């Protein structure tokens, strides 16, 4: 299970204007895992993602895919991008075709699939993201959340091994972000590796197997979500907050409602289960 699929080794990157966006970033991604990357604005999450499929070339350090340094030759990059897909933060920059249907078909067609397979995949991706009724709409008439879903469909249709989502739920309404989490669930079950960046500590905490916290171009901590997010010094340093589940749990322990041995809840349901009913009501 602990097979490495993607790895960043000592990655350094500065933008042409001199902004040093990544400093000695080391990150290992295991096959099939759910990795969340937390970090405040400008921490370098998007920049790091751009390295994972070779869009940006590091100033020093390298990216490994399945143990091999990635090569920046045109043909190799095309191969890499079949396996590592990115859903970008700004859907507007990703949607270039006029109609939704056409835009989603762009990626799978580039994989050299037959037309029937492409149609099949486009349809499935539209079902998964609930964009079927938008298929004929021009992309410039969509709402922000709709654009976001269409851009997700455009990458899902390519069925990459590793899927990177850059702030996927920003701008989505609660129902659609809930449904998006279910798509993620499904992808995980299919064995895909998923990397997701977010500012939402609650989401990152509940969803991820592993967590990396970025701050000003560095990964300042990585490990199990339950371990990292319970440490106020890290959370504070990265301009984040402690997830409400953990806060509530600690408070309940502190006030004696829960034994200190109670396991940290991962979801709302876990927390509610941990809380014992009042003795008077238990028999009722």
């Amino acid at each position: 299970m602990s097979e490495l699929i993607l790895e960043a080794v000592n990655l350094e990157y500065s933008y042409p204007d001199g902004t040093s966006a990544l400093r000695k970033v080391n990150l290992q991604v295991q096959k099939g895992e759910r990795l969340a990357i937390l970090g405040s604005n400008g921490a370098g999450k998007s920049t790091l993602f751009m390295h994972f499929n070779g869009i940006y070339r590091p100033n020093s350090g390298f990216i490994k895919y399945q143990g091999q340094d990635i090569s920046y030759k045109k043909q190799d990059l095309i191969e890499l991008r079949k396996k590592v897909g990115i859903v970008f933060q700004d859907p507007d920059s990703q949607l270039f075709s006029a109609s939704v249907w056409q835009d989603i078909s762009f990626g799978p067609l580039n994989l050299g699939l037959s037309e029937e397979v492409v149609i099949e995949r486009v349809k499935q991706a539209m079902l998964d993201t609930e964009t079927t009724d938008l298929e004929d709409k021009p992309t410039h008439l969509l709402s922000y959340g709709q654009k976001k879903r269409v851009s997700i469909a455009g990458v899902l249709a390519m069925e990459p091994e590793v899927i990177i989502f850059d702030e996927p739920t920003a701008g989505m309404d609660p129902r659609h972000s809930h449904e998006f989490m279910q798509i993620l669930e499904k992808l995980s079950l299919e064995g895909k590796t998923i990397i997701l960046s977010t500012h939402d500590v609650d989401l990152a905490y509940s969803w991820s197997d592993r967590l990396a916290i970025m701050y000003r171009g560095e990964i300042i901590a990585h490990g199990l979500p339950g371990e990292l997010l319970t440490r106020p010094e890290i959370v504070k340093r990265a301009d984040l907050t402690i997830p409400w589940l953990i806060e509530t749990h600690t408070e309940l322990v502190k006030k004696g409602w829960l034994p200190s041995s109670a396991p940290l809840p991962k979801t709302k349901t876990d927390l509610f289960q941990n809380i014992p009913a009042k003795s008077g009501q238990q028999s009722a």
Partner: protein
Amino acid sequence: MIAIDAYAYNNKLKSVHPAEKSLFAMLTMGMCLTSSTMLTPFIVLVLMAGGIVFKAGIPTRVLIRLLAIPMSFLLISVLTIAISVSTDSSGFWLAQTVKGFTIGIHYPDLLTAANLFLRSLGAVSCLYFLALTTPITELIAVLHTLKVPFIITELMVLIYRFIFVFLETATMIRRAQYSRSGYVSLKSSFRSMSRLFSALLGKVFVKYQDLYNTMAARGYNGEIRVLSQKRPISLRNYFFIAGIEIPLIILNLLWR
């Protein structure tokens, strides 16, 4: 421009195969331009206006507004043809003589002018029919099957998209400026405007860069390929086209 685009995606003829609509519009336009009788352009105009309003379900006022755009150019050119000024007052059909100069209209000139007017308007109505019923993307797909070089169709796709990126960005910047009291005085208007242009340039450049990156991420290899929605081919429509064009051809031939 924007209104036309919105209707193209949202009209009752949307699901008709784009090749059929293009063929119909282009052939009819050919008939209209090659005719020497005024009857053909007139029929074409009625036909296309009927098609746009009744078949495609586009509001009449939209069509009238659109037809009014070329009207001003047309009227000017038509008037210069129809009206002549001369020292010889003979042969005028309708004239006014002032101090030895006669301003008026020769009957043949009037015919030429009316003919030209109707022909241009007829041809424009054909183009409007196509533009209002067929999204650009599908037109590009038709061009594609006609073996128009990739580079041209791709440029069309990108230019089309970027028109909207430009517009959207410009609208957003302008709104932001208004809400912070830009354009309140002449001086501030000039300043706001110049800021708008420089911001626009920067933003569009960044967007262009982003677009390239995102396309690369989805396997772009120098050729934009997308699947167009398959539209049913309808034999009935081809018969319909033939049924319209053949009488027009006969009309044109008889009236030579």
